[in-house]
């Protein structure tokens, strides 16, 4: 299936940008990845399948983000690693019909609660009609979900999987959350900072490398300080090496940077730690089988 290629280089508002398409907008080919096929129970009797972008000549399109991730996974495989990831996403639910937002109600939105009830069972109860439906859509993929540190804010933790599947799953989760909220007369947003006086939303990425043959965790070494291997330290150092340069890819919007405020639980500093969550990078667990690298940089849109 062919599509207009402007969508590979556009904004959240689908503007056709100068520079890339000055001499016309060539077609790109969408090639179904049947491995991504799954039921989409957040819609009635629906299934969903993802595509990768190819050039018309049949080669992967250089601007296809999913193809780029697949290339990085192939690079890891050449080095003898399999890659596992887990993503956590935060979002706000507003007691406002999405139809009103679509008609211009971008302000005058009040959260459902004036107060923060982080991790509260009771707070979770009030949104269970929506959150319960989201959980029911992904019984094997959602590991936990809970009210977060914001008025009407939630977090969903996805159970670890192959990293491409995990990125796919975060797309499905956002889609399902927005659609279910809309159907229930509410609005969901993953916007990084919807109000300067309230919490922002982030997305945390945990990654783990395993030996592709033995399945042994590559980041773990019981004999070393903090039980972290040399490969872990180099993996971490590689991320610190492009600390500033990589921000654009974790935080691509003007609004993303309003989330990166000091003392806001956002990862803002070029350092790392084993227990602290405020550094941009950290070791996320002390369990040897699950030792993972964590980026708390990411601010979803």
């Amino acid at each position: 299936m062919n599509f207009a290629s402007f969508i590979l280089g556009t904004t959240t508002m689908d503007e056709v940008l100068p520079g890339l398409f000055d001499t016309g907008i060539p077609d790109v080919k969408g090639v179904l990845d049947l491995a991504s096929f799954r039921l989409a129970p957040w819609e009635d009797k629906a299934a969903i399948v993802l595509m990768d972008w190819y050039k018309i000549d049949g080669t992967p399109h250089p601007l296809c983000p999913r193809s780029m991730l697949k290339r990085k996974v192939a690079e890891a495989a050449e080095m003898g690693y399999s890659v596992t990831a887990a993503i956590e996403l935060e979002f706000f639910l507003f007691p406002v019909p999405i139809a009103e937002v679509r008609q211009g109600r971008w302000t005058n939105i009040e959260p459902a609660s004036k107060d923060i009830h982080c991790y509260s069972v009771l707070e979770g109860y009030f949104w269970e009609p929506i959150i319960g439906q989201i959980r029911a859509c992904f019984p094997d993929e959602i590991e936990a979900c809970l009210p977060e540190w914001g008025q009407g804010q939630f977090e969903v933790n996805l159970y670890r999987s192959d990293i491409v599947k995990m990125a796919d799953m975060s797309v499905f989760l956002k889609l399902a959350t927005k659609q279910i909220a809309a159907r229930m007369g509410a609005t969901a947003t993953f916007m990084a900072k919807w109000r300067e006086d309230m919490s922002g939303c982030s997305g945390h990425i945990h990654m783990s490398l395993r030996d592709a043959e033995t399945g042994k965790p590559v980041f773990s070494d019981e004999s070393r300080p903090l039980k972290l291997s040399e490969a872990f330290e180099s993996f971490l150092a590689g991320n610190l090496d492009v600390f500033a340069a990589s921000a654009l890819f974790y935080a691509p919007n003007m609004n993303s940077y309003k989330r990166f405020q000091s003392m806001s639980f956002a990862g803002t500093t070029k350092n790392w730690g084993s227990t602290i969550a405020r550094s941009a990078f950290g070791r996320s667990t002390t369990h040897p089988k699950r030792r993972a690298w964590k980026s708390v940089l990411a601010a979803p849109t």
Partner: protein
Amino acid sequence: MNPYLACATGLGAGLRGIKLGLKAPPASTGNAYEGEVERIPGTLAKALAAAEENQAIREILSPELVDNAARIARFEMGVFESTVTDLERRRYLETV
């Protein structure tokens, strides 16, 4: 964030670190918000500049993807710079 680009960035940067045998500084302790530590770029403009002057990120994500992200960011900044907002009306309409 685009989860594919974010994951590709973190994975690609980490693999590059392993290939080059890069060494990490010691782990921080205490409150990472305190002390003399480099901060993440504070604005999209600063993030764009940091990406554009860095060769490693082009190796990790390809020049095409970095240039594409830069083009989008620059356009987005232009929209914000040329749009008159409620904040401006609030701060200036009555007082200026």
